Each structure stands twice: as C-alpha cells, then as structure tokens.
C-alpha cells in the first residue's frame, strides 16, 4: 500500500511505545532501489489496520499525546496513509493530536455532574494548576459514574488512567501529582444500593454483585458461575437459541431487538468467520449500569460471550469498552486471563473441542462508537462513523462478516436463561418486556445508583427505591433514556416502565437512564448541555446531524438570551429536529432533537420567561 512518510521522525520513546505493541520493525532491505521484483502484503495490511487504534492508544498512554512523528511511525508500521490515521486519531476525545501536558484531568460537566458541583470543582482545579506546566484539565461529557458525582478521569502519561468519584479539588490535584493511592475499588453497594445488606429480593442481574470477589474465578464458580456454559455445550446451539427465543429477551442497548432472532441469524449465516461483539461502550449520559455489572461480576459477561461464541459458531469475540472505564477494563482483562488459564476460553472451551477467544478493545472517548456499526469501524481502525443498514450486522458486520453484537446487560441475562429455561425467564416482567431491567437513578435522588426491577415497575416506584427526590416532594422533571431520551414530568410518574408502555407514551426506555431533576435545577441549562453534547459527539459524516446539532445548540442559546423572537426559535428547533430525525444515517442524529423537543412540548423551558 502506498504510504507517504511524514517528514518529522518519531522519537525513540514514541517508537518504543509502538514497538512494544507491534513488535520490533522488520529489517530494511539494504539496496535502496526498487529492484526487479517485490512481494507485497496487502492481505496482511488489512489485518494490520485493525491495530491502528491500539497503536494510537499505546502512544497516547506512553507519551501523553500523538505527535506527527509518532503518527508517521504508526502509519509506516501499519501501512496506513497518514491522512487517514490522522482522521482516526482526531475523531477521539481521549487521543490528543496536539501537544498538551502529560497529566490531564477530564472533569465531567454533564447533566448529572453539573448539578453536583462540577463547575465549582473545575474552578478550584484550575486555580490549583496555575503555574503547573505539567498538568491541565478539560471538561468532559458523562464519565458514567453518575451515582457518585462529580467525577473526574485522570490520564497521566506513562501511568494508568484512573477515575476519581465524589471528586473534590484536593483529590483531583493529588491524583494528577501521582499520589492519592491506587485507583479506588468501591463496594458494589456504593453503586447498586440494593446489594447492601439486607439485600433486596429478586436480584438476577445483580445476583452476585457484592457477593463474589470479582478477581476470583473460584468464587464465581462457587456462586454458580460457568454452569450455564456447561449446559449450553451439553444441549447444543439449537437448544440455546430456542430457549433464548422462548425467553422473549429483548436487547438492552436501546433498540429492544429480539435477542434470540439475532443469535439465530448469526448461527445460520453462510459466511465465516463469524464474530461476537460485546458493546460495552456505555456512553449515554446518565447511564452506568453496564459498568457496575462489569466491575462487580466480570466473569458473568465473559461466560455469556463464550456461550454466544459456541452457540453462533464464532471463534473470536471483541469486547469493546470505553476508555473511561479503567477499573472495569482491568477486571475484565484479569477475568479473561483466568478463564484462558482454566480452559474456559481458548482452543478447546471446556473440553468441547470448540475454540473461542475474547479480545478487549478500548474506545477512546467517542459516543458515536456505541452505535454498533460505528463500533465495528472503530475496531477495524477506521473513524467511528456508522454504516448504512442494511446489510445488518448479522449478515455483514465486523470485517464484513456475520456478527452478533449485544449490549453488556443483554449478555448478562443469558446465563440465567440457559439455566432456568426461556419460559421461566419470561415469567418475570410483562408480556412485551420479559425479565428484569437495570435502571440508573441519578441526579436529585437520595440514593443514586443502579436498581434492578422487573419490567412494569413505575417511575414512581423506582424513585421511591432510590429514597425519593432530594429534599422531598415531586421532581421538576425526569430525563428518561439519557441525552437521546425524553423528559417526562411529575404527572407521568405512574408510567409503567416497559418497552410497550414507553412506546405508547411516546417515550423510550433507551439505555435505562433515569435522571431526576429537582425543583432547583435549571432545565434550560440541562437542555443546552444536551445540545452541546450532540454537537460535540456528532461524527460529521451526514449533513442533517452535522449541521443540525450545531443549529439546535445555537437556537437554544438565542432562546436563553431572548435575543430573537422565542416563537421563531421554537419553530427552528422543530424544523431542525424533524430534519435530523428523518434524514440522519444513525440513531445519534435521529435522537439528537428528541430531548429538546420534549422539553419544549412539556413547557419545561418556559421558566426562563423567554418562551411563548
């Protein structure tokens, strides 16, 4: 492949960081000229391309930013044109193509953290960093630890990423200096209050959280772990798929697609190889349930992916996890290593003769990569831009091959379905929404955290579980489903939380985020933050979303300043939202106007006195 070298050379440290991942560079052929015949490696180059993101991570991790020289060296090793690699690097918030200090605090200022003192925290951190050339801070979208807001992610060159929760300035500054101890390892109960003693009844997805040692395979097995894989291998793929269909399990990533059909489609696809992909790029603001599952019951996800592999005939799985989740990543890496060592992953899974391996891929700060086809592109070493569908992933997904892609929570349901059978699973919940659901209660509630309830519980009941609204009374509004979801008001709190009831009410459960806004919260500010989020996270591939998210944010700012006729701005917002919904390629653009529109429809922006 033709690669034009960049003029700047890479430093020795940059080369070393890349070589540590890719191995030493091949020896140069000495003669200089082209000679008479040469062998190329276009096939290998395609395989190498998927190492682009890991290689960029390696440089970012070691050096703290990706210089032109380092980028050039990565391109030379992987034979990727520098312009393309730059386009990839540039598309991720946690990779920097501009020189910056080696220690960076990413301070969350998203919808939950901004009402938990994010602004004051940023001010104090900024003052504390005055005169420090070696450190800086940046605002960040949701870091997915909303139950312990405000949150900070520390990226330190040459060190591990770490997250600081319930952050104050001294802790952030200490973390940037390298003290403050190792990354925290919170109790499950701090994130999922139902797992505190006395444990709540009926926990299925959270059944082991807080009870098992997440580092111990033995402990996991002692709590029933890997029993489901044994049963799945014994009963065979068709049985597993039948039970999954009987369970009526719907995907928990937001689209609520029947999981059994997806598994069946991949298992019956003609092409090989096939892949299993776990979407752990949980980036919807206000959502953190997958993180809790991965941190406190990592083996369950590994086991479920393995069941998926042996059932669909895939031999390799990718677990794509956002870089903002260093603790979950570390625990999953350890779990994979232990499972491999115990013969539960590898060439002969549990003595079945079947092969299945799992590779973790870290995201790099891009909401769009949670969209399944953008996620494939990200793994393949391209910009995280969604693909047109069809073809659907089950036909042509990762590397153009049949791919089973499920969300973490979806996978987490699988072992129980295999052990109890589909019918027993479907006995919980409602006709249209079988099983239990994890909801992320955050914002103005007394005990924020992940709560597991059977489908059909009401918003009211959920908020009560979380100790009610802070300061008592009714919430001003609830944002259901994160930035891509919609606002509901106190009058709608009796809504049963099921896919079908939500659909009938014109809202969506989405990712399961339930962000509660008390009386004192400025909702116009929250909608502007949501608009800014989409403007920032739009991948820019399609016009309606690229332009629309900018226009939406601008109109909201004009609305706040009452600089224009409020009615005109509302009309513009409506037009823009309709264009984005109708014409965007993927869910990001299609949902980017929903929260704002629901806020307008419910009159939530009128408190500013600028709306009609």
């Amino acid at each position: 492949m033709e690669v034009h070298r960049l003029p700047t050379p890479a430093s020795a440290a940059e080369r070393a960081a890349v070589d540590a991942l890719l191995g030493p560079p091949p020896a140069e052929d000495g003669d200089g000229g082209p000679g008479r015949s040469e062998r190329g490696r276009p096939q290998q180059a395609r395989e190498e391309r998927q190492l682009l993101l890991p290689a960029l991570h390696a440089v970012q991790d070691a050096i703290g930013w990706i210089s032109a020289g380092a980028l050039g060296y990565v391109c030379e090793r992987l034979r990727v044109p520098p312009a393309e690699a730059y386009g990839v690097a540039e598309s991720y918030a946690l990779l920097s193509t501009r020189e910056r200090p080696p220690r960076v605090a990413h301070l969350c200022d998203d919808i939950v953290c901004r009402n938990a003192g994010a602004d004051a925290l940023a001010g104090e951190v900024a003052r504390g960093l005055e005169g420090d050339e070696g450190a800086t801070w940046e605002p960040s979208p949701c870091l997915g630890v909303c139950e312990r807001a405000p949150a900070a992610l520390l990226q330190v060159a040459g060190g591990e990423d770490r997250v600081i929760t319930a952050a104050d300035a001294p802790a952030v500054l200490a973390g940037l200096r390298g003290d403050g101890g190792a990354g925290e390892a919170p109790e499950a109960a701090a994130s999922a209050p139902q797992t505190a003693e006395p444990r709540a009844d009926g926990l299925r997805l959270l059944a082991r959280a807080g009870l098992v040692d997440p580092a111990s395979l033995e402990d996991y097995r002692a709590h029933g772990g890997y029993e489901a894989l044994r049963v799945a291998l014994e009963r065979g793929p068709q049985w597993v798929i039948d039970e999954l269909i009987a369970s009526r399990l719907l995907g928990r990533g937001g689209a609520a697609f029947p999981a059994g059909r997806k598994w069946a489609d991949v298992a019956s696809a003609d092409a090989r190889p096939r892949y299993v992909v776990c979407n752990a790029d949980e980036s919807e603001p206000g959502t953190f349930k997958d993180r809790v599952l991965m941190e406190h019951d990592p083996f369950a996800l590994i086991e479920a992916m393995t069941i998926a592999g042996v059932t669909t005939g895939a031999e390799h799985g990718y677990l794509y996890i956002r870089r903002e989740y260093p603790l979950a990543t570390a625990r999953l890496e350890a779990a994979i290593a232990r499972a491999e060592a115990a013969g539960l992953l590898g060439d002969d899974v549990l003595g079945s003769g079947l092969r299945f391996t799992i590779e973790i891929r870290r995201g790099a700060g891009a909401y769009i990569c949670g969209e399944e086809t953008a996620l494939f592109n990200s793994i393949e070493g391209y910009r995280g831009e969604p693909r047109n569908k069809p073809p659907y992933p089950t036909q042509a997904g990762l590397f153009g091959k049949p791919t089973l892609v499920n969300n973490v929570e979806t996978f987490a349901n699988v072992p129980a379905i295999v052990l109890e059978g589909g019918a027993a699973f479907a006995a919980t919940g409602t006709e249209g929404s079988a099983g239990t659901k994890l909801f992320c209660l955050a914002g103005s509630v007394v005990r924020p955290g992940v709560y597991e309830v059977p489908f059909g519980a009401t918003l009211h009941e959920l908020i009560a579980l979380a100790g009610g609204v802070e300061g008592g009374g009714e919430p001003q509004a609830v944002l259901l489903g994160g930035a891509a979801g919609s606002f509901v008001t106190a009058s709608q709190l009796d809504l049963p939380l099921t896919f079908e009831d939500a659909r009938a009410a014109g809202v969506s459960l989405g990712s399961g985020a339930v962000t509660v806004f008390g009386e004192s919260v400025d909702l116009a500010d929250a909608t502007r933050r949501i608009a800014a989020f989409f403007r920032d996270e739009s991948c820019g591939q399609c016009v309606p979303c690229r332009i629309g998210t900018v226009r939406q944010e601008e109109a909201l700012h004009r609305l706040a300043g009452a600089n224009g006729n409020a009615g005109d701005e509302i009309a513009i917002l409506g037009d823009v939202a309709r264009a984005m919904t109708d014409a965007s390629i993927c869910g990001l653009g299609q949902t980017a106007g929903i929260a704002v529109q629901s806020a307008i429809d419910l009159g939530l922006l009128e408190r500013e006195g600028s709306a009609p």
Partner: protein
Amino acid sequence: MVFGLGGGTSSYEEVEETELIVLWGSNARETHPIFFHHVLAGVRNGARLIVVDPRRTTTSEWADLWLGPDVGADIALANAVGREIIHAGLAHREFVERATAHFEAYRQSVEPYTLERAEAISGVPAEAIRELAHAYGSAGTAQLCWTLGITEHHNATDHVLALINLALLTGHIGRRGSGLNPLRGQNNVQGGGDMGAVPTRLPGFQDVEDDAARARFEAAWGVTVPPRDGWHLTEMFEAMERGELRALYVIGENPAQSEADVQRARRLLDGIDQLVVQDITLTKTAAMADVVLPAAAAWAETEGTVTNSERRVQRVRKALDPPGEARDDLDIVFALAERLGADWGAADAERVWDELRGLSALHGGMSYARLEELGGIQWPCADEQDPGSPFLHGRLWRDPLEGPRVPFHSVEHVPPVDELTEEYPIRLTTGRRLDSYNTGVQSADYGSPLRRPETLDISPEDGARLGVADGERVRVCSRRGELEAPVRYAEELRPGLAFMTLHFPDDVDTNRLTIEAWDPKSGTSEFKASAIRIEKIG
C-alpha cells in the same frame, strides 16, 4: 482480432469477485483510478494482485507480487509464463483441445523461453516469473488486464497476442470471473472503436472489406462505401510525407503535441493544403489550422451515449448550453454534410443511435428507453429482450463448441527499436500521472493539489552517478531531438530507467524524444521505449 470483437471480455463486477488480478503494463492506480476501485474491492474480497511494470508504481504497492521487467521484454516474460504453465501441468487441456487451434505450434514456440532465458532478457528473477505462472495457471478465476505498457510498442499486437495466449492456455476466458481486459483511457475510447472510428471497421466491428457488410450500410445510406481499409493515424502521416494526403479534418485529437517524434509531425501538418480542427479548446494543432470549428464538450453539453471498458453503453445528457459559437459535434458534422450537398435531416442523437441499432447487431436491443431503465447495457445486445452481456465468449465453453476455434499465435521477443548504446544509455519510458490526462487538453485548466510541473524522473543512483542533483535542470537527448527539463529523483525507478509524461507539452515537449516506430497492425507508436542521454547544462 483473435476473437473478432475489440473489447474487454469481463464486467467490472467480475474483477471484484475474481481470485487473481494481473495488471500487466498498467498503472491503473493513477491512470484508471475508477477501474482501480474495482480492483481494490477485489483485493478486499481476497483476490491476489500481481503487477507487471518496469516501474515500482503506486499500483504495484498494492500488489502481492510485483515484477519489474525491462521495457519491451513482456513477450519473453509471457512466453516463459506460458512455457512454465505447460511444463507444470497447469494448462487447461480440455479447454485447449475443444476451443483453440495451433496449440502445438505455440508449445514449440515457447519452448526456448525457459525461466532462465526470460530472466536474462527481462531482468526479472526466474522465481518471480515462476510464481506468476503458477498463480495464473492454478487460479480458479483470473483477470488479465493491460494498458499502454503493452500496446505502445513497435510490436504492440504481438504483445497483446502473447497475453491472449496465456488466457487460451488456462481457460481464463469466456467464464464469469475470468477474462482479458484492455483498459480504456477515456470514458468513450471503447465507444469510438464500436462506432467504426477505426480504419478497417464499420460500426459494430464489421469488416470494411466484407462485401455483405458493406452492402448493408450502402443500402441504409444510399451511397457507396469505399471497399478498402483506410489509413490509421501513423499511416496518414506517412501519406503526408509522400504527398498523397493533402487535407486533414481532425476531431478531438491533438497530434501536434501527442504524436511520437513530434517535430516531424508538426512539419508534416504544416506542409498540407488544408487543416481543419474541431475541438473544445484552441489546441496546439488547432492553432496551426486553416479552419477551426469550436465544439461542445461531450460530457456536459451534448446528448448521446458513451461506452466504457466493460462494453457498457450509457446515456450522456446535456446539462449546459455550450459557450460562444461552440456547437455539438453532431451539429457540425450534419451542417458540413449539408454544405456538401447531402440532406441528413435533423441532427438528433437518438435518431443517429437508432440508425446504428439497425446496422449493428451488437447494439440492436439498446433503445434509449432501455439504456435509461437498465442503467446502461453491455454489448452484445441483440434485441429488446436481451439483457446484454456481462462477459464475452461464453460460446467457447458450450458443448458442442459454438463458432470457430480461437487460434494461438506464436510470437517472438523483439527488443525495442531504439537501442540502448553507450551514446544513449538510458531507457526513457512515458506515461501519465493521476492528476493529468495526455497533453492536458481536458485536464490542464483544472487545478490539482497533486500537480507538479514536468520533470525527468530518474533513480537517485543514476542522479548520483551523473552528478545531477534532485531538481537540477538537465538536457535530455534522443536520436530524434533534445529538450531541457528539471530532474526529479524517483524512488520508483531503478538505475537505467527514466520516466516522463506528455502532460505539459508547452513547457516540456517530451515527444521530441520519442520514436515514431510503429506497429504495422495497430498503428501505435513506441512511446514506451526511447533511448536517451542525460547531459548537465553549463
């Protein structure tokens, strides 16, 4: 000429499905970038790509294997590949026996072309030639594609025959996924040939010297068609030299800059009685003309059709009125006929097309309505029920064989005419770059971030040996002429090989250097092989 029809045998789609793609004498990455997208799709789908080119081109950097022969050594290489396929037992015996003729003569003719001898002639290691032979011989499907690296030689036709022999030997012809594809340089080169813009053919590749064919056209046109082959361009210049050709009507061609040995061409154009040039810009040739007929640009200002390298006829629609006095080529030709006393009626593109459909069996079923509906149709397309033909020569696989057997042609390696000597030690070859086209008539007015002025590209080793720095202006001399140009060190060239384009004839008149030695069968000059000397200036 082997198969009776002049066109690529496969569809682009097949290039995306095939197991092996061989690009021989083609820098498709730069010169056929749209076709190359299909090649890349094929590579992405798992095809092996083998590139044969003296230069280590950007195309070759996408290849699994690149072979860099001496310029003009292709026949030796191809014959050795054929011999190796036979000796390795990879020939498709069944196909050879049922569908071809003269195999035995071919077998004997390639016998002297051992891998070692081919290495001695071409410079390519025997092992690489062997690998090409085995890849082509054992592939389930294979596409063999070529361009001007094969045809711009004094023995161009023999070059093409040497490649066709390989397809006959292996049965890589007439089946889906396998084929022979000369890539066309413009969107409608194929269409020009199809419409009879060649001196030996009437529209639809019907032989001018075939009485029955001629009679059909005479009946339709109500005139007598001259019963002899015409002259091709090179022969026209020879006729000018002899004083036999005294008037020339040039449509969309710029011979005053594009001909090999261009000083001679200009002298001859100057010497004729009447030169009429019809073109979209005032080309160098137009500037010499007695009459200039400004023409509309065919891709935006006219109605009609074009035919691409996969024989697909597609509609072209008029988007703009031509500027100033420029007129549609069709209008001009019709008006000219009128002045000459013939009434052809309205100059309507669809009318002309429908006349063609009545005369060319290849195009019979291609009404404008169907072309529109089907997004273009690949010839042959006999009638309005015929969906067209994705690939040609399927008859060769039918049982029993339909039509005549296809003959092998034994061809021998003959080195380029312009010999390398101590006085002229460096081989100059010419070609194109991605951002420009031929003499620049269609491309020079558009800016490109890739464009750089003309240079003499040489290997850094030659530069060092000659004491010539990168960027230094030098004098370049051939047996026909000389010019000055800046040197560019080119990594893709080996010592002894130099490269220039024809893109900027007003600045660097590359064709002062090239040789007009031409192939008697195709009329193509040997642009690919001149002998030059590089001199320091001052």
